[in-house]
């Protein structure tokens, strides 16, 4: 009961009063006036009275009611206040800020929590517009739940961030309804900042989890009841499935290679039963398409939805395994290189200058145990630089392929060529020093120099071949080079002559023993080299089993022990000679020496062949020259020969003029005639010789009887025979068969032979012409008793250009032409011609002609 009710009661009182009053008046009126007909005025007093009674009755009653009500109301209000107090207290004790507003959004009531929340006292809040105090705005905010609930007539909720307060708030509005009309509302404002934060972090961690699991490259799984309850996409992908194909459908054993199923099953069991918390292990999995893969799983026992489960990660380490293998082999390769490279390599920690590693070459060069080297500080140990003066780390210099010094363990320093490369490995600086022993370099240079010397020697030989055509000079030069190039005690060149090797030229030799050696084919070192056709190295000449019948005595006498022999062969492969080098002490000739000598041998072959060629050319040139000389001699001879008969003719005719004795005149004329005939013969022979030189003799063959032809020719020379007091005998048998011959040419042969016999006979000498049959041919001989022909000249008298030097003596062949012409003719007939002679006793000229077969 409240004031309003009282007011209502009051209104009800008055209404009731009016109604009762009207009703009583109406009743009185109706009864008296209508029914009784009485006038209004007559009844007025009773009516007034009646009215008063009613009014007093009603008023009295109502007053009583009212007072009662008031009393009730009062007691009610007291109760209400108490109630109010209770409310307020309750209100205030709430954690949430609560206020009650009226329909106009004015705060009518607020609790302390709200005051605390908004930093204001309750008095400051009540009576003000709620948006003013809560949002500090002049208008309600856009999605004000209070306004919303006013519209929807339902409770509304809003969470929002209040920038004024810097906090997250939640606002709940409950409308206060009266007669379906909202008269106000109750707002509960909560500070949800912490909640929000928690929510945010939850969301974040959820997100993170999602990220981790969904995006993870590692497979993530939850196994329960033998099935996968969860797998992330990565895991599904590892096995070639989609997550949906696995989750709740497949179990871990479905993805395991049959071989490894017992292992996996056992591992799962152990964790499910809590025997172990977690296991990390590798097993062979199997993909959807059957491809085997290597998996590494790490899983632990967890409670999932209140029951035992395993959560874990899984990696496909197939590639890693392969990579590991590849890395291992590449590392092995690098290691091998490091270990076997002939360059010294030392790895030094750039900060501490401690040697971290050294390869065997470096260890060998430093010459200390590896354990002593590793861990030592490089300064003053392998490098002469002092601490703090390292060119690389301290002075900022670079060492690149420069000549340095390496300290050995014994303090000795050796020259090296060094390169230092600073590297960074795992954020640590190192120096990689690589170096080579320059001694070797120097050796290399030395060998290069030697090669150059070889080259020089070769070119010198080449030049010498051109410049010195004399073989002996050349070979002397070659053996000297051979000795110098090989650095040996002695060098020898021997030449091959038919089946024997003979000493030719040598240097560094003390005795004459070697010069006498004549190696027969198949014996000694020389023939061995020729037979093998390659350089032969003999360390000890006296014990080498390969040598047969070697000239041990001569070599011992000379004092040589070790040999290197290289055959000198012509371009056609014929052995020309042997080039030897030898030492007096026992040594083994090196490959390089062999190479040098082989090169020289090739040059020697060229030189020898060249010289031989030159000799031949020289010989041919000399022949040509002598031929030319012969030609001029022939001219001189011819003129001489021609002039002699002219002299005779001239002298004879001159004397004839003054001669009176007819017999003497006749004699002189005969002399002149003979001289002319002689001249004719000379001219004829000359012409014939020239003709024969150009073409073959043309023979017109007929049967010729020698018994007939010989006296004819002899008859021609009778006067000369008489003049020289020569006797001639003919011994031509009558039964001699005729020969097939050219008559004129055969006459010429006889004439020339007889001329010759006359010319070289002594005065009073004898000439014999004989002819006889012999083995199907006719043998003719013209012999004289002249001065004869020296043995060595017998062959040459038939030479067309033959003559002994005409300036010193008369040629035996006269002009040379006569016998040469005779030879040509006889040979054209198919016969032979030759001479036999005993100097001082005479000469015999023979020729044969084929006899005519009868």
């Amino acid at each position, binding site marked *: 009961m409240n004031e309003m009710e009282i007011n209502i009661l009051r209104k009800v009182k008055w209404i009731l009063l009016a109604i009762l009053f009207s009703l009583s008046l109406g009743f009185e009126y109706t009864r008296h006036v209508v029914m009784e007909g009485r006038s209004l005025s007559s009844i007025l007093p009773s009516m007034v009275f009646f009215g008063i009674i009613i009014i007093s009755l009603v008023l009295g009653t109502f007053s009583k009611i009212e007072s009662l009500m008031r009393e009730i109301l009062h007691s009610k209000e007291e109760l209400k206040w108490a109630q109010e107090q209770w409310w307020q207290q309750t209100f205030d004790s709430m954690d949430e800020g609560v206020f009650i507003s009226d329909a106009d959004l004015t705060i009518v009531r607020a609790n302390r929590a709200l005051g605390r929340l908004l930093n204001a006292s309750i008095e400051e809040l009540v009576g003000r517009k709620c948006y003013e105090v809560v949002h500090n705005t002049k208008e309600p905010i856009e999605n004000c739940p209070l306004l919303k609930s006013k519209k929807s007539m339902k409770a509304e909720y809003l969470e929002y961030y209040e920038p004024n307060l810097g906090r997250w708030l939640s606002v709940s509005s409950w409308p206060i309804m009266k007669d379906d009309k909202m008269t106000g509302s109750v707002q509960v404002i909560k500070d949800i900042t912490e909640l929000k934060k928690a929510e945010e972090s939850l969301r974040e961690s959820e997100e993170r989890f999602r990220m981790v699991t969904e995006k993870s490259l590692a497979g993530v799984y939850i196994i329960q009841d033998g099935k996968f309850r969860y797998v992330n996409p990565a895991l599904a992908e590892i096995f070639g499935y989609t997550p949906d194909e696995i989750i709740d459908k497949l179990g871990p054993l479905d993805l395991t290679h049959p071989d490894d199923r017992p292992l996996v099953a056992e591992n799962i069991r152990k964790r499910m039963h809590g025997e172990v918390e977690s296991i990390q292990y590798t097993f062979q999995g199997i993909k959807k398409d059957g491809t085997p893969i290597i998996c590494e799983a790490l899983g632990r026992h967890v409670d999932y939805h209140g029951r035992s489960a395993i959560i874990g990660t899984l990696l496909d380490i197939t590639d890693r395994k392969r990579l590991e293998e590849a890395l291992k082999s590449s590392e092995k390769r690098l290691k091998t290189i490091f270990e076997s490279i002939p360059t010294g390599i030392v790895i030094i920690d750039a900060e501490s200058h401690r040697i971290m590693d050294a390869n065997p070459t470096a260890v060998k060069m430093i010459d200390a145990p590896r354990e002593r080297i590793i861990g030592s500080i490089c300064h003053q140990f392998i490098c002469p630089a002092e601490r703090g003066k390292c060119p690389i780390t301290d002075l900022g210099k670079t060492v690149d392929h420069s000549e340095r010094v390496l300290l050995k363990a014994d303090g000795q320093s050796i020259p090296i060529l060094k390169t230092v490369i600073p590297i960074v490995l795992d954020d640590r600086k190192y120096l990689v020093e690589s170096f080579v022993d320059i001694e070797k370099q120097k050796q290399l240079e030395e060998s290069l120099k030697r090669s150059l010397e070889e080259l020089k020697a070769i070119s010198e030989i080449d030049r010498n071949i051109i410049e010195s055509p004399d073989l002996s000079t050349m070979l002397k030069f070659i053996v000297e080079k051979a000795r110098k190039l090989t650095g040996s005690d002695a060098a020898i060149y021997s030449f091959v002559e038919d089946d024997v090797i003979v000493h030719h030229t040598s240097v560094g030799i003390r005795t004459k023993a070697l010069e006498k050696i004549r190696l027969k084919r198949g014996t000694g070192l020389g023939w061995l080299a020729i037979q093998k056709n390659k350089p032969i190295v003999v360390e000890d000449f006296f014990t080498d089993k390969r040598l047969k019948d070697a000239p041990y005595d001569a070599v011992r006498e000379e004092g040589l022990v070790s040999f290197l022999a290289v055959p000198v062969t012509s371009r056609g492969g014929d052995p020309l000679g042997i080039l030897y080098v030898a030492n007096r002490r026992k040594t083994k000739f090196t490959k390089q020496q062999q190479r040098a000598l082989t090169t020289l041998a090739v040059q020697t072959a060229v030189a020898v062949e060249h010289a031989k060629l030159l000799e031949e050319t020289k010989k041919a040139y000399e022949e040509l020259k002598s031929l030319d000389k012969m030609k001029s001699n022939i001219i001189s001879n011819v003129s*001489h020969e021609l002039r002699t008969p002219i002299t005779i003719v001239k002298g004879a005719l001159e*004397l004839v003029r003054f001669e009176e004795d007819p017999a003497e005149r006749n004699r002189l004329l005969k002399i002149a005639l003979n001289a002319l005939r002689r001249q004719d013969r000379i001219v004829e022979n000359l012409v014939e010789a020239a003709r024969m030189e150009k073409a073959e003799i043309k023979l017109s063959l007929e049967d010729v009887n020698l018994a007939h032809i010989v006296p004819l020719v002899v008859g021609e020379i009778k006067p000369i025979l008489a003049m020289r007091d020569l006797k001639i005998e003919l011994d031509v048998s009558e039964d001699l068969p005729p020969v097939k011959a050219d008559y004129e040419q055969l006459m010429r042969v006889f004439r020339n032979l007889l001329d010759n016999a006359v010319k070289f006979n002594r*005065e009073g000498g004898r000439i014999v012409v004989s002819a006889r049959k012999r083995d199907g041919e006719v043998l003719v001989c013209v012999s004289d008793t002249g001065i004869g022909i020296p043995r060595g000249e017998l062959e040459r008298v038939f030479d067309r250009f033959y003559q002994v030097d005409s300036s*010193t*003596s008369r040629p035996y062949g006269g002009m040379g032409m006569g016998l040469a012409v005779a030879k040509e003719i006889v040979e054209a007939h198919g016969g032979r011609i030759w001479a036999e002679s005993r100097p001082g006793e005479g000469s015999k000229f023979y020729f044969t002609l084929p006899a005519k077969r009868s």
Partner: protein
Amino acid sequence: MANILLVDDEPEIRFLARKMLENAGHTVVEAEDGEECLELLKSSRPDLILMDVRMPGDNGWEICRKIKKNRKTRLIPVVMFTVRTSPESVEKSKRYALADGHINKPFDKEELVAVVEDVLRKSKA
């Protein structure tokens, strides 16, 4: 009148030269070659030697030189008698063989006698 030794291997030449010299009043002794000439000189001393160059055995120049190098015979005048007409041959006769004269073949009777007598005159002077 002189005694002349004629050395030539050609009998015809010897015959003709002898005739010419004899016609001029000289006496002639013949030799066939250098060897015979030297042999003759051992036993006789001619007034002049007429010698061919081209002969079997040692040639005329060599023989002449021997004669001229021999103390016993070096004063005997020698005339070379040759068909070698080149200036070199004439020079060789004088310088090498140390001959006193030179006659070319073919020769005239007059020339032969004139040269021989000229050399004889000079040698006597």
